[in-house]
């Protein structure tokens, strides 16, 4: 059974390890006893139907939500991630489904939001502009006209690229992308997927949430499936095919009648 996290299959300690995570909102049990491994230098695809709990799991790891029970291990040590700041201190950066960019700010201002460079108390705009341009260039995000234009004027793909670039700018060790290719065209999707591969090649642990199995199978080294808040499958990507992932997503199991809920 793929139900239990395959601790033995991963030779070294995964960068991030989640054990027995519970989270509820009033009567809604969004996550129950969730286990998850995110190894460095690998892309983990997190799948699940609408409302399965993918975004909630992401937010628990990113310090936005506090889990009710369970433990998160970072590089083998138990940690408590109480805020977004805690998460980024560890090296966890998240690109949210609802992008979390401020439309009125320009690209540079968004990329540095919360971590502006200051010199003698004043914002160091030139330095931030240089660093932002360098990061965008290294990720080959070259379609924007000016890095001083407000993000409200960008296309969906450009906004997504800015959000990803923002996440990788901080030498992050784990980058979580919640539906990074939703609402993107073919070219822009490819651009984001290439970006994901480049991150992995830099040794970063990446978790990608996607409803698009083509995208998942293109980039994922490992696949994890959530079903109604439970982790029903987690293994190497090669252990799955499209059919089995869809079955896990829709019924919570393979080759059996749907689980009772």
């Amino acid at each position: 059974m793929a139900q239990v996290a395959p601790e033995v299959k991963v030779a070294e300690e995964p960068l991030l390890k989640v054990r027995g995570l519970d989270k509820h909102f009033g009567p809604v049990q969004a996550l129950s006893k969730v286990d998850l491994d995110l190894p460095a230098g690998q892309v983990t695809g997190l799948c699940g139907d609408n409302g399965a709990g993918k975004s909630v799991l992401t937010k628990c790891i990113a310090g936005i939500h506090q889990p009710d029970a369970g433990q998160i291990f970072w590089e083998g040590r138990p940690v408590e991630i109480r805020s977004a700041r805690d998460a980024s201190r560890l090296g966890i950066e998240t690109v949210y489904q609802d992008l979390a960019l401020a439309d009125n700010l320009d690209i540079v201002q968004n990329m540095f939001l919360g971590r502006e460079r200051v010199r003698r108390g004043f914002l160091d705009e030139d330095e931030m502009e240089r660093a932002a341009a360098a990061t965008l260039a290294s990720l080959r995000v070259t379609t924007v006209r000016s890095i001083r234009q407000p993000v409200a004027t960008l296309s969906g793909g450009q906004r997504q690229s800015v959000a990803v670039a923002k996440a990788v700018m901080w030498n992050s060790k784990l980058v979580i992308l919640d539906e990074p290719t939703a609402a993107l065209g073919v070219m822009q999707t490819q651009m984001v997927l290439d970006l994901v591969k480049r991150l992995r090649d830099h040794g970063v642990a990446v978790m990608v949430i996607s409803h698009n199995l083509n995208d998942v199978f293109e980039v994922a080294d490992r696949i994890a499936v959530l079903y109604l808040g439970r982790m029903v499958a987690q293994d190497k990507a090669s252990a799955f095919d499209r059919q089995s992932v869809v079955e896990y997503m829709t019924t919570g199991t393979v080759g059996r009648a749907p689980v009772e809920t």
Partner: protein
Amino acid sequence: MEGSRSLANLVSRWVVASTRLGPRLQSALLRMSSLAVLIGLIIFFGFTAPGWYSTTTLFNILTATSLFLLLALGETFVIISSGIDLSVGSMEGMAGVASAVLIVHIYHGGFGIGVVAAGAAAALVIGLLGGAINGIVVGYLGLNSLIATLATYGAYLGFADIISNGFPVGNLPPAMATLGNGSVIGIPFLVLIAAAASLFCAGLASHTRWGRYVFAIGANREAVRRAGVNLRRHTVLLFTLSGGLAGLAGLLSTAKFLSASSQAGSTDLLIAIAAVVIGGTPLTGGEGTIWGTVVGALIITIIENGFVEMGVSGFWQLVVVGIIIVVAVYVDEYQRKLRIAAASASQPRVDE
């Protein structure tokens, strides 16, 4: 029909062109539209009110502007962050009354510079405290700023009357008169203080982290939270700044009129919000400039002053301010709609 369509065409083309100008130039142009109104008014009153151009008029206008400008500066930050502070007027009254009562109590003759310093400190502390209370109610208790500051608007007005038993406080020392009506190298103290506060606020808005967060919060509060910014502390500081400026205005108002009453700032709230709105800061938050507010404040004073010079009753000022608020907000909304239309019309250009 034909003509209006081509006019609409022209306008939309102009808007499209202006969206390509880049945000800095755009906001510069927006600022200039209220600046153009200001210059227009100056020219108009210069022709219609004989002898209007004089340094006396200039300093009269600047002095009359300085008090409510202080409120408007703080209000600009609050409105950019998409909140509102309705308590600044009554906070001005409360701080003024409290400092006057203290000064009268401890004054025993002489010029009274030390006594006035103590009164100034009291006014500032009361303003900062009153603002901090607003900030705690909004930031920590999570109340909507409109309701929270409506409540403290009433409470602070009440406190002012409790402190003074409802009577105006007078008999202030000569040092107070010097503060309120004196000048250095010909420039009134009030004007110097308001100018310094404007400079300080402009720097805060565009060159500090804290100022950047004010804008970001106005556009996307959640993005700022996820960026790890302590929003509660930010909110407390925001309202504390607004309150501190109101406290300063209370002190200076007492100094200028050599009398303090709870009603001192009763019309200042309306006028301060009007200055912010006329200065191009939309109530929807996320945008705005300090210099726009300064220009907006000057426009309001010039209208009042010009009316008086022309022999029109100064009472008309409030009526006109009310009308200007409606017009300014309408023009602002209209421009926004045009911008959105232009942005969606030119959408395909953004992709490769």
